């Protein structure tokens, strides 16, 4: 079948602002949106630029706005979206070229929440014990692949990029609720900040956007509650 694509292009070496370009691509209904982008890049217009790597939804490179919603281009099939297909870069981060945005602010927020296990006890020669129930508490938030689909779907983040954003909170949650960690207090202190978890207005966009099915809004609410209890 023929697919019509409309892609928001921007080349900083040529353009003052973004503009739409139109493509027609022959595709099977089972193909991924990423496959369509590759067909354009490889056989039609090599200047089209986007990030990608694993092509099956685990590396988090290719989050983009497809027909108005944040998705991974490698995780959506042609038959699942309406034709014509509109593709834009994710919102709220500076566009560098075409579908590529500057991810540094996103990773800076991630690094603010101490995204690593802190435990000062002697470790011993064997593993620390953790019950299956304790482990299950962090099952959901350990799935995060840092693709930024959640953060860049958040209307609060669009208007105030100082907001730490859902992804950073999810990664804080992953350690706050880990029975082996000892720094919850400090993370909660960080998230109490004016740009922390309480900026969330529970729009649930992040939960819809997460390609890993993480209950992002719920995780943010957990953190808010924990912050109040911690006071």
């Amino acid at each position, binding site marked *: 079948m023929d697919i019509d694509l409309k892609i928001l292009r921007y*080349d900083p070496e040529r353009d003052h602002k973004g503009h739409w370009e139109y493509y027609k691509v022959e595709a099977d209904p089972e193909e991924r949106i990423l496959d369509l982008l590759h067909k354009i890049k490889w056989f039609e217009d090599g200047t089209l630029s986007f*990030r990608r790597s694993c092509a099956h939804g*685990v590396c988090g490179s290719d989050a983009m706005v497809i027909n108005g919603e944040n998705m991974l281009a490698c995780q959506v099939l042609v038959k699942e979206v309406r034709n014509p297909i509109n593709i834009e870069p994710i919102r709220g981060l500076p566009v560098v070229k075409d579908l590529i945005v500057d991810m540094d602010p996103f990773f800076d927020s991630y690094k603010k929440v101490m995204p690593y*296990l802190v435990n000062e006890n002697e470790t011993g020669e064997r593993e*620390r014990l*953790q019950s*299956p129930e304790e482990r299950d508490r962090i099952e959901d938030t350990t799935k995060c*692949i840092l693709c930024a689909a959640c953060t860049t779907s958040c209307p609060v983040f669009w208007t105030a990029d100082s907001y730490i954003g859902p992804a950073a909170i999810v990664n804080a949650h992953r350690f706050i609720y880990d029975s082996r960690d000892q720094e919850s207090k400090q993370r909660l202190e960080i998230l109490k900040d004016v740009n922390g978890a309480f900026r969330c207005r529970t729009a649930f966009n992040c939960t819809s956007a997460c390609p890993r099915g993480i209950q992002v809004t719920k995780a943010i609410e957990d953190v808010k509650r924990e912050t109040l209890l911690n006071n």
Partner: protein
Amino acid sequence: MKIIKHSFDGVIVGAGGAGLRAAIEAAPHMKLAVITKLYPTRSHTGAAQGGMSAALANVEEDNWNWHAFDTVKGSDYLADQPAVDILCKEAIDAVIELEHWGLPFSRLENGKIAQRRFGGHTVKEGADPAFRACYAADRTGHMILQTLYQKCVSMGVEFFDEFQVLDIKIEDGVCKGVIAFELATGDIHIFETRAVTFATGGFGKIFKVSSNAHSLTGDGPGILYQKGIPLEDMEFYQFHPTGIYRLGILLSEAARGEGGILRNKDGERFMERYAPSIKDLAPRDMVSRAIATEISEGNGAGPQNDYVYLDLTHLGAETINKKLPDITDFVRTYVKIEPINEPIPVQPTAHYAMGGIPTDVNGRVLSDEKNTVLPGVYAAGEAACVSVHGANRLGTNSLLDIVVFGKRAGQSMLDYVSKTKASSISDSSSDDLVNKINNLIEKEHTDEFSVGRIRNDLQESMEENSKIFRTEETLNKQTKILESLRERFENVTIFDKGKVFNTELMEAIELDYLLDMSESTVVSALARKESRGAHSRQDFPERNDTDWMKHSFAFKNGNSATLRYKDVELGKYKPMERKY
């Protein structure tokens, strides 16, 4: 383009499991840079699923010697046994260390790390399948990558994200530095350094149906191969039995470890005929060949009889959702079937390079078959060949390899840096690369010589002629095809002439490496007149221990390769017939 110079004691190229583990070892004691063409968390370690083996004995009696026995037998006796002993012995501490750093392993009721069965892993030297693979659901690689990156963040490791290393400078046989291209700006960066570790991963994109990421183009092996460093055991490439039909997306062996069964079009559990004792949990080379044989004999399913089924329907929703959540999600996403109720169409998919940059057990790169060490250059992970996987890697042993030998490579860098003085690299050292890039950009674009078309033809022909079964005829045919692809590549052109994120330019350079990898693979495969592990010659179907207990070393020679050989290091396990 600007040229920017940096000075470091050590540089690690690649930020998957091996690179990050090496960084954790080296960073506290030297000025270290980690350079990666992706963001670290995009690395393909994150796509590994089923587990990481170590004889923790959390479920049943186990010891690392049995793990070593299985690894050597799985390798079809081509692995170097002293290296395998190191791998399996150090596995235990490696897993414990990851747990201490926060890796969220799945747990047993008693709180210990959970372990599951996996292909080729047995207790008591083949008696029964072993519960040896430590796992975090079916996203073990994701958790390893995240944990190692988190550890690096906590240590303040310095990363150069989205910088692609394209050259190494070796003068008088000693490493002087590497040259990198900054994707965001098109600037060239000269990294003056006396120690470099290549941890760039595999090169599964030489094949069409592959579990590998688009980024896996053999960059590290390619850079060194072009400098005259040989590539070891390139004829041994692993095809994973269960890739999603046509797409090649990996469905972990853990699916069979948890009880999944392979069936042909008649519903027959055909592995009973090929490996009567451990059946569906036979090593990957055997299962992939069994599937290919079923298909060629007309027992494949589907309108073209070209796939088999992975049947999980008897496992029940709870086991599937709890233990195999990701892979069953892949099936729902890409095949639109419900694996709880329906069997999954699968076919073998290009998965893992046993071969690569030759190293010793300390990650030191060897520049020939006589074990001559190349000072200051190290390699680890899939890019390297120690060799612990021999002719066929066992499932879970790659995650082990990256942490055990990543750590050792990091230690070797430290050791070398502490004993040598910093040396300087000239400002003109990037001239070759700058010329190469300018030439590529200046050539007018033509369709015939586009990167996409040449690479497409490469992947399709490699798939056709040098996949699971090979013969002299198919390999000769592929040799000719590679010659013509190389000629076309000499004229390769790109459409994008810009500086900012010129990913097409990078794809053109990566295609050069893919051609190198393919050429060395085919030359090595043509020469090895026997069948061993993943290298299966239909015209030489038997293993030949008299003539071929040796590793191949392919040296680049124009657009072909010259081969030399090195004997396998044996140990306590004597080669025997490989039956399961």
